[in-house]
């Protein structure tokens, strides 16, 4: 049991090391760079035995991981923002080939304007990439989820790649106490890699990724969809198994907090979840019945679970750290789809874009709005832009 003050980047790298990754593709981009630097140190001091490839771009980083995974080894890389965008072409290739690549994504705003701080608009365009996607709100979770990610991704029922998301600077560069796992414990949880499907092997000839006519496409896509639908079961299993072995339960698909009797529930992604946690405690102490759903898994999306919660409460708010221009925040769109047919007043709060802080007061404001909506049954404003000069909040 080694508890140290480490950054989210360190935790991610450490998790990859403990997962015994065999091929790491390394390319720098703020604010992820330390992940690949830490991995370089681990390799250099003999703690991590792997092929460390200092690639010349993120596109190559993901390509290298895909081909290495297709050749039967556990692979890992990390990126953010523009780097993720550059990888975009290869992401559906990883999932289409059903390769369990794991990637840490330090969520940073995508240009333009060019900005290095937290926003979720880098990962949102990858919603339909076929990757499983989780958002963390503390560094312990980051380390733990990297290990869990391999276990989830490599499960034969899933066989899909996965991202582990952490907010730029708030997690990536902030030190928090993390229980750094021992190798033997990690090995017990995550055994030696067994490829879920056919691989490139000179001693067992197969072909991976060839030109495919229409006759096979519906079936291929259906199987990916089926895997994504199986994934929640696997995610919950892995969470329970992890909690049993390590004594830490991060919550599975969602981490609901005080929702059972809540008059107002806020759904959040990323570190805003953690801030909201404190606000819930404060407001509950004041006698206000508020609840929080930390939305952990973005894909697969916990539609049924969120719907159940929405049915029981008086108002639901969704906090978005990204925008789908002209419509609303993307998380709100997904929620409304899950809540289709329900009459519960629902509101979207867009905030924290490009690194603007999401304060306790901001969250409290959201809850007050929701409580009001719960009482009157009327929504004061569908979509609220938080702290935007010239725009009424």
């Amino acid at each position, binding site marked *: 049991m080694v508890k140290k003050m480490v950054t989210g980047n360190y935790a991610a790298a450490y998790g990859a090391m403990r997962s015994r990754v*065999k091929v790491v593709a390394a390319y720098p981009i703020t604010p992820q760079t330390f992940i690949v630097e830490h991995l370089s140190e681990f390799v250099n001091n003999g703690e991590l035995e792997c092929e460390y490839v200092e690639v010349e771009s993120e596109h190559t980083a993901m390509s290298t991981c895909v081909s290495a995974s297709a050749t039967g080894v556990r692979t890992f890389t990390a990126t953010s923002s523009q780097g993720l965008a550059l990888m975009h072409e290869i992401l559906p290739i990883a999932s289409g080939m059903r390769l369990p690549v794991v990637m840490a994504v330090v969520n940073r705003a995508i240009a333009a304007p060019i900005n290095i701080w937290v926003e979720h608009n880098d990962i949102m365009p990858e919603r339909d990439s076929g990757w499983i996607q989780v958002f963390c709100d503390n560094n312990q979770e980051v380390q733990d989820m990297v290990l869990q990610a391999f276990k989830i991704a490599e499960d034969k029922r899933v066989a899909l790649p996965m991202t582990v998301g952490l907010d730029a600077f708030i997690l990536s560069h902030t030190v928090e106490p993390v229980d750094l796992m021992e190798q033997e414990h990690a090995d017990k949880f995550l055994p030696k890699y067994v490829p879920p499907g056919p691989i490139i092997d000179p001693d067992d000839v197969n072909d991976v990724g060839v030109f*495919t006519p229409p006759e096979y496409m519906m079936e291929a896509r259906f199987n990916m969809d089926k895997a994504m639908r199986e994934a929640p079961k696997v995610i919950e299993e892995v969470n329970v198994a992890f909690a049993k072995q390590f004594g830490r339960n991060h919550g599975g698909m969602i981490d609901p907090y005080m929702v059972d009797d809540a008059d107002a529930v806020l759904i959040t992604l990323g570190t805003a979840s953690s801030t909201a946690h404190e606000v819930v405690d404060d407001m509950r102490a004041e006698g206000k019945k508020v609840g929080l759903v930390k939305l952990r898994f973005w894909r697969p999306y916990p539609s049924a679970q969120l719907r159940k919660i929405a049915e029981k409460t008086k108002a639901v708010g969704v906090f978005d750290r990204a925008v789908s221009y002209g419509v609303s925040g993307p998380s709100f769109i997904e929620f409304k789809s899950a809540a289709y047919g329900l009459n519960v007043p629902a509101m979207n709060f867009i905030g924290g874009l490009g690194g603007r802080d999401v304060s306790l007061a901001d969250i409290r404001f959201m809850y007050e709005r929701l409580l009001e909506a719960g009482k009157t049954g009327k929504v004061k404003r569908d979509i609220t832009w938080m702290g935007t000069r010239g725009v009424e909040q």
Partner: protein
Amino acid sequence: MKLKEMPDEELFTRGHTACAGCGAAIAARNLIKVLGKDTVVVSPACCLLIFSATYPLISWKVPYHHVAFENTAACATGMKRALKVRGKDSTTVMGIAGDGGTADIGFQALSGAAERNEDILYVMYDNEAYMNTGIQRSGSTPFGAWTTTTPVGKVKSGKANFKKDMPQIMMAHNVPYVATASVGHIQDFLNKFEKAKKIKGFRYIQVYTPCPTGWRHDTSKTIEICKLAVDSGMWTLYECENGKVTINKKPKMTPVTEYLKPQGRFKHMTEADIKKLQDWVLKKWENDEKLAQLKA
């Protein structure tokens, strides 16, 4: 390995859907024989992928992999590193791509892998245009050639720029082995692939592979045109092994018009343009010869 010593077993089977007379098919079929069974191959989207691997029918009898268009060298890197981890470091990893996927869009990944001296064999089959998408110019298309993006008419008169010198760009990366080859020059082809197989580190072979469909020549003339290319100096057969440059076949310096004649893609060329091309060839050969002398 001599021609008659080549094994009978085809590791690239017939039944593929390449055009009749395809130079790339000749290259693929023969090079995999030299490299042998302990080889894995990755290709980008290109003619070779489409004609050799349309699901579920495949020509390759060695493992074949495809990811995207511009990342052949990156994928070969991943394959090699993974095989190393799995204790199969002796397996030859070959990335084989066309000129579009190498000299243009594939260049970044190629240069990166070369600079890192990745232990892979990179083969560029040079049919001098993006053939798979219907004959568009690439950096490797020669001056004056008709393609659909450098057509011939009122405004344009074929490609306005000269062929990118990929072999020398790769030599500048100081990798263990860079060579040019042609499907029309059998022993030279065999020598180079045999040599490349044994070398550790980054190896680059650019194979001249005429395309009857894109170059507008008779399907029977594929090999003849290779010989005209080398004899005229349009294509130099040389190699660079650890910095030492050797010219394998000194061109006869046949007038470039002989090379242009059988190819419909050049039939529009004016005397002035032909002279430009001839001058370029002379200069190119002069430069190649000097390089060989300098790096003997």
